[in-house]
């Protein structure tokens, strides 16, 4: 048993250590004898305007995505759990609501590229409803691209939250609600005084997990816009990928990868402490 775990640890810990080392060298892989340059790569990185832009956009992308995932996930979970639905209908809606989650990122993106094509069905519907008067370029307009990518990411990612929260809602004892109803509490009071506090530990756990995942989100952004137009959707993940695999700046890419790792690790640390506290 322990050999497997040991191998896994080596496959995780050693590479992470390697990235840290790479990030302190002059261009690794490409140079035969890279020199130690200390924190120079990090200084260059933070001096780079596009990297700073990517940092900000990563924050916007992550916070907006997680917030919307939570809102939509909670909304859908509560509708499914309302108890006012026939069993079959609840099961059917549940399947439809989970659907986006089974699609791989590249299919998600192609699908939305068709729907959001300037000549596509969404522009058609918006035009028919007189909400827009010319064809909107959802992906190639720099001021819309980030919003579009976030929207696609929200669509693809909320089901995990919804399912987790649904399981949480089903675990809240029904007599809590009954007692509140006898006391004359309205739905708002029941929501804020029972549902939210009872659900809070799970809410916090899924929010942190989702935060880590969205921070690292690569395929959807890369496939939808490649970080463009004009770096409008650049995040740390796409920036790192470009450095490593388009520009072959592996040392700089490592530094950028370390930044992403450190942020993720901090959130993960909170997550672990939270999970321990729940045990």
């Amino acid at each position, binding site marked *: 048993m322990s050999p497997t775990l040991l191998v896994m640890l080596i496959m995780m810990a050693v590479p992470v250590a390697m*990235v840290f080392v790479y990030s302190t060298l002059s261009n690794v892989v490409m140079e035969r004898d890279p020199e130690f340059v200390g924190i120079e790569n990090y200084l260059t990185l933070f001096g780079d305007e596009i990297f700073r832009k990517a940092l900000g956009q990563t924050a916007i992308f992550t916070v907006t995505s997680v917030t919307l995932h939570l809102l939509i996930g909670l909304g859908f979970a509560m509708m499914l759990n309302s108890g006012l639905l026939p069993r079959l209908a609840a099961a059917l809606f549940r399947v439809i609501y989970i659907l986006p989650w089974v699609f791989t990122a590249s299919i998600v993106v192609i*699908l939305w590229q068709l729907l959001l094509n300037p000549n596509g069905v969404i522009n058609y519907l918006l035009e028919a409803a007189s909400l827009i008067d010319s064809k909107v370029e959802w992906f190639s307009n720099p001021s819309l691209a980030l919003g579009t990518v976030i929207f696609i990411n929200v669509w693809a990612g909320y089901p995990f939250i919804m399912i987790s929260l649904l399981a949480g809602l089903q675990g809240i004892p029904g007599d809590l609600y009954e007692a509140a109803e006898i006391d004359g509490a309205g739905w708002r009071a029941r929501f804020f005084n029972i549902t939210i506090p009872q659900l809070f530990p799970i809410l916090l756990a899924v929010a942190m997990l989702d935060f880590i995942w969205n921070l690292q989100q690569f395929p959807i952004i890369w496939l939808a816009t490649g970080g463009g137009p004009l770096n409008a959707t650049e995040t740390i993940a796409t920036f790192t990928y470009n450095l490593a695999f388009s520009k072959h700046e592996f040392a700089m890419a490592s530094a950028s990868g370390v930044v992403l790792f450190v942020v993720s690790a901090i959130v993960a640390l909170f997550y672990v402490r939270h999970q321990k506290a729940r045990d």
Partner: protein
Amino acid sequence: MTTTRSRGRSVGAQRVALWIGLTLGAIFAGFPALWMLLSSFKPNTEIFQFPPTFLPDTFTIGAYTDILTNPEKLRFFINSYLVAGAVVLLTLLAGIMAGYALSRFQFPLKSLLNTVVISVQAVPPITLLIPYFGLVVWLKLYDSLWALMLTYMVATIPYAILMMTGYFNTIPRELDEAVKVDGGNTMRTLWQVLVPIARPGIVSVGAYTFMVAWNEFLFALTLTQSRENRTVPVGIQLLMGEHSFKWSEMMAMSVLGCLPVLVLFLIFQRQFVSGMTAGAVKS
């Protein structure tokens, strides 16, 4: 009397609001998938027809026959099945063996295991990819399906071990002892007694692993290069870049590409869901 009537009315109003909400939600969640399916049966000229058609005017399965008779495109699917199949088998094998050992023999490793599983989440794939790229080149596995199998298992095995340990923990030890009294050895106990009982757990880990391996994009993009080693997620994008005008074919490809995971999901819904929430919603 009045209170019951007003409550009845408010439940009625609630019901209407609920159905409106549910329908809007279903359109948001399901319309894109429905549109994909419908578009895959339209001829390409109908895709951007103005005004758009909802149901195909001309129903055709041409896009599907094109894909299924083209060896180059079929290759993407074969590769994805090979990679996902191998990863599932090896992950389950490792998960069952290690999970059994962890559950039945006292190792001071439980917390280490937890650490590994969380670390897998915490390390960004893009960060891990840089050293893995070097490792894969060094092992002479660059541009091969082996590179994908190996790297995917780093993510799937720790999770499988954790899940299987949990499942084996729920099976009473008395059962093992009964088999041993009958002269069975440890391995026999595992495969003939515990594994059949733990089947729901194995299915859930297997389905989840399949999905992870089938859907992975970043490593498949970077660790393979030649067309014959591309998997479905990367292959679709390649075709998209080359014939972006053939939308109906892209949609047919997408339908075929999500079919295995969708079928698994519909059959093993409960196991799937429990597998996916196990991490976050533990008691």
